[in-house]
């Protein structure tokens, strides 16, 4: 029983950064912007979170720094694609490349330093309840943020007027502009929100998942988050489900390696990436579903007539 709980807990820990980064990107894509820089923003969040914790000793300040780092870094993308109407694919790619380089440079002195882990929640009485206690009341704070964030984004997109406006921009920025909706402003806010989420996801990696700094520690999770958004056909609750499935695959292959299953570890390590490909193929086979849900203006640059 205890093993099961432990496995579930580690799955949640593995799923949380994927979930947060994907939820952020979902909002960005719902506004019609494709930011392929998730991996870069995530790794910047990771180095920022670790650095601030290392310098101040407080992982909570680290948490805030991770969010701020992701948000500021995404602003670079926003200025390029929204104000200068650059190609979103190329700009997102360059954001990732820049993030991987910059984080490596900033993190040189952090390599091998001990980190500080964000403490898990502990509520006397509740956390000790067998089985469900630790699952519900004994996890790290970012886990709770991730669940709350998913619910909040769901409510925002489908229950509020602002959310409706955001979706309308993703459907047709020309129509939105004709109605007087401030397309560029909404998109700026969406991109920055996405950046903050990616930063937070990165912070989770260096403050909870493995509380230390390792170069390229995001290991493709930003890209998997992007794939999750497609997999979820831009629906928040499906992102949640997808993130946990991937978390399970990730943890599953680690456990398989630990148990010494007679398969080369490299093959097991490549499972999450192969699983992403397989899942993308499965989801894209349903053309109607994809076509109905893809924000119609996704990736299109928008330059209003003046």
């Amino acid at each position: 029983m205890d093993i099961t709980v432990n496995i579930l807990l580690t799955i949640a820990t593995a799923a949380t950064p994927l979930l947060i980064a994907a939820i952020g990107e979902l909002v960005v894509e719902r506004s019609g912007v494709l930011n392929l820089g998730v991996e870069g923003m995530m790794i910047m969040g990771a180095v920022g979170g670790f650095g601030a914790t290392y310098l101040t000793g407080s992982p909570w300040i680290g948490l805030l720094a991770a969010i701020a780092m992701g948000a500021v870094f995404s602003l670079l993308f926003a200025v390029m694609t929204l104000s200068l109407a650059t190609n979103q694919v190329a700009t997102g790619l360059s954001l990732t490349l820049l993030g991987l380089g910059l984080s490596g440079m900033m993190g040189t002195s952090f390599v091998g330093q001990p980190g500080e882990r964000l403490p898990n929640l502990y509520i006397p009485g509740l956390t000790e309840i067998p089985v469900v206690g630790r699952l519900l009341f004994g996890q790290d704070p970012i886990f709770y943020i991730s669940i709350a964030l998913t619910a909040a984004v769901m409510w925002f997109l489908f229950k509020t007027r602002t959310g409706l406006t955001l979706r309308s921009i993703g459907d047709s920025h020309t129509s939105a502009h004709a109605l007087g909706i401030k397309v560029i402003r909404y998109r700026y806010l969406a991109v920055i929100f996405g950046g903050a989420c990616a930063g937070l996801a990165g912070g989770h990696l260096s403050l909870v998942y493995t509380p230390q700094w390792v170069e390229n520690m995001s290991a493709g999770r930003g890209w998997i988050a992007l794939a999750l958004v497609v997999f979820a056909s831009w629906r928040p609750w499906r992102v949640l489900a997808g993130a946990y499935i991937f978390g399970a695959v990730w943890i599953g292959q680690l456990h398989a390696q630990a148990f010494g299953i007679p398969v080369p570890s490299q093959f097991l390590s490549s499972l999450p990436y192969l699983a992403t490909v397989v899942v993308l193929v499965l989801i894209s086979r349903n053309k109607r579903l994809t076509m109905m849900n893809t924000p119609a203006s996704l990736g299109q640059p928008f330059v209003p007539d003046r």
Partner: protein
Amino acid sequence: MMRLELVKRPQRSMLFSALSPFIAFALTIIAGAVMFALLGVNPLTAFNIYFIEPISQVWQLHELAIKATPLILIAVGLSVCYKANIWNIGAEGQFILGGIAGSMIPVLFPQFEGPLVLPLMLLLGMVGGAAYAAIPALLKTRFGTNEILTSLMLVYVAQLFLDWLVRGPWRDPQGHGFPQTIQFNDSAVLPELMPDAGRANWGFVFALIAAVLVWILMSRMLKGFEVRVLGSSPRAGRFAGFGLNRMVFFAFLLSGALAGLAGISEVSGAIGQLQPVISPGYGFTAIIVAFLGRLNPLGIVAAGLVLALTYLGGEAVQSALGISDKVARVFQGMLLFFVLGCDTLIHYRIRLVGLALTRPEGAAKREAAPKLKEAR
């Protein structure tokens, strides 16, 4: 509050088409100077070490060519993809698979020697890269799967596969446990061009030939026209009777083959054996090279040399100033950012709202360039 506003030009600006990479380079230098100053290094000293010293001697120029070879080969292929609006970003994986496929001959048949070995290796390298690139192409055409994500995921898979090979079945039994294959025999090593002057090998010549051939393809041939039409307006391409699915395969196979050629050239030329890591991210840096070269194969040759210099410079500042060699990645990223930003000037004039509402046409044009700097 000030706001950037873009005003579409009636025709693309020839002036900015030509100037944009240079403006971008200048801006990168400025940003780089700020960065070095922040790191507490005199920017002039740093630039000297970074950009001048690594190419002040002939043997160093050979090193530059070695670094530029894979970048140019890969970027030339990617330029065809990107012109066709097909986003292969998995060239790193295709590079690795090309290296692995080409190495089959010297690793599995070390006794096989002679003049046939190298051509066969190169051919296998191209086939390996192309075959690996065919996977995202197949998934895209068959199921409509997003090629950005699939081609990228396959990079991680390729890296792990190479890691397994050199630690497992292909490991050199006499290698004292080091994760590497046997050293290739002499007939499996790409010869150097001028052994007395430096290490540059025939790979560089392949890169130049590939650039010229692809340039002719893109600017003079019907196939290149097809690529450009399908990339810029797919519906017009369909109206012309050009098939998008065929184009996806063409672009992926071509770029995969060139990445594979780059991979086997690197392995058999610069390295001489397979190791767990055979690329410091050439496949990704080549994306920058492709854009810096404005997706023009001849421009890519120049861009490849510039980016190769950032690698050498990164190593130089690391040893001379103790700054992380990641500084090279930062320079590359900044350069791409500035290139993309400056390319906006080709199609748009930029103005700042709030300064003047009405102004004569000519004046606005002349002000476009300085305005960008103000905005930044």
